[in-house]
C-alpha cells in the first residue's frame, strides 16, 4: 500500500461512510433484542460485532490490499477458533468436576 501519495477528499469520504455504517450497526445492536432474532440474542449480537470488526479492520486499519498481514490475522483467528472449539465445544459439554470445582456453584459441592 502506497502511504506517501494520498487523495485526502476521497479517503475522508471512505472514513465517513464507514462511520455511518458502524453507527447504524450500533443502532441495530440496540434494537435487535426487541425486534429480530429474539430467540438467539447472543448469536445476533456476536454476528453484528463481527461485521463491525470487519469494517474496522478493512477500512480503518487499512487491511485492504495487505496480503501478508491479512494472512497473519486469518491465522490468528483460526488459532482462536480452535481453542474455542476445544474448550467450549468439547470440554464444557463434558464437564465432570462439579464436586471439586471452584467455578461451579457452591451448592454443587
Amino acid at each position, binding site marked *: 500500500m502506497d*502511504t*506517501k501519495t*494520498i487523495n*485526502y477528499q476521497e*479517503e*475522508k469520504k471512505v*472514513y*465517513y461512510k464507514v*462511520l455511518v455504517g*458502524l*453507527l447504524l450497526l*450500533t443502532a441495530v*445492536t*440496540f434494537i*435487535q*433484542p*426487541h425486534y429480530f*432474532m*429474539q*430467540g*438467539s*440474542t*447472543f448469536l*445476533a*449480537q*456476536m454476528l*453484528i*460485532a463481527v461485521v*463491525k*470488526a470487519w469494517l*474496522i*479492520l478493512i477500512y*480503518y*486499519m487499512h487491511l485492504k490490499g495487505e496480503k*501478508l*498481514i491479512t494472512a*497473519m*490475522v486469518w491465522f*490468528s483467528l483460526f488459532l*482462536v477458533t480452535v*481453542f*474455542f472449539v476445544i*474448550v*467450549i465445544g468439547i*470440554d*464444557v459439554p463434558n*464437564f465432570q468436576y462439579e464436586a471439586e470445582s471452584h*467455578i*461451579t*456453584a*457452591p451448592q454443587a459441592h
Partner: protein
Amino acid sequence: MSHEYVPEIATDRDGNQHEVQGWQDDFYGGKLGFWLFMLTEVMMFGAMFLALAYYNALHPQDFLDASASLNRLLGGTNTVILLVSALTMGLGLLKIRSGDVKGAKLMIWATIILAVAFLVIKGFEWRAEYNHGIFLMHDQLLPESSLPFGQKLFFGLYFSMTGLHGVHIIIGIGLMIWLLKRINAGKVSPEHHILHWNIALYWDIVHLIWVFVFPYYYMIGAGGATGGH
C-alpha cells in the same frame, strides 16, 4: 543524546564499499512489527474472552441476569464515543499524510478529549455499581454474599476486562500526547509518519476490543429473562 543515523558500511570482496540499508525508513517493517504486537493483544483478550465464554457456558442464566442489570445507556454512549474517536484518529492520520500537520494535531487532541470522556463515563458507571455493592472484593462479590455464583463470575470478569480495556485507553492517551510532542519536535512529519500510523492502529485495536466487550457484557441480557440464549 543524539539520535543521528550513522550509516553502516559493508565492503565487498573487491574492496568496494556499500552503505547498508538502514531501517529508519522501513515503513512496512514498522507496520508489520506493530501488527505482531497487536496479535499479542488478541491473544491476551482472546484468553479472557475464552474464560468468559467458559463460565458463561457453565452458568448461562446467571450471565443473562447479570448482563440485564448493567447500564446499557452509559455503555452505549461509550460505544459511540469510541466509534467517533476512531474516526478522529483516522482523519488525523489522513491529514498528516496529506501535509496538514496543524489539522492532524487538532484531530489527535479531539481523540484525547473523547478518550477522557470515555474514562469519565466508565468511572461513573463503576461508581454506581460500587454503590450497589458490586465491585471486586467488595460486598456482593464476596464469597459469603447471596448473589448467585455465576453472577459473581460475570461481574469479576466484567471489572477485569473493562478495567484492562480502560488501562489500554489510558496508555492510548499517553501515546497520543507523546505523538503530539514528536510532531512538535518535527520527528513525525508528512514524510515520516509511521509512529502516527501505528498509534492510530493501536487506537483501532482498542476500539475493536470494545466492539466485542460491549455486546458480550451489556447486550446478551437485553432480551429479557431468557435472553434468547
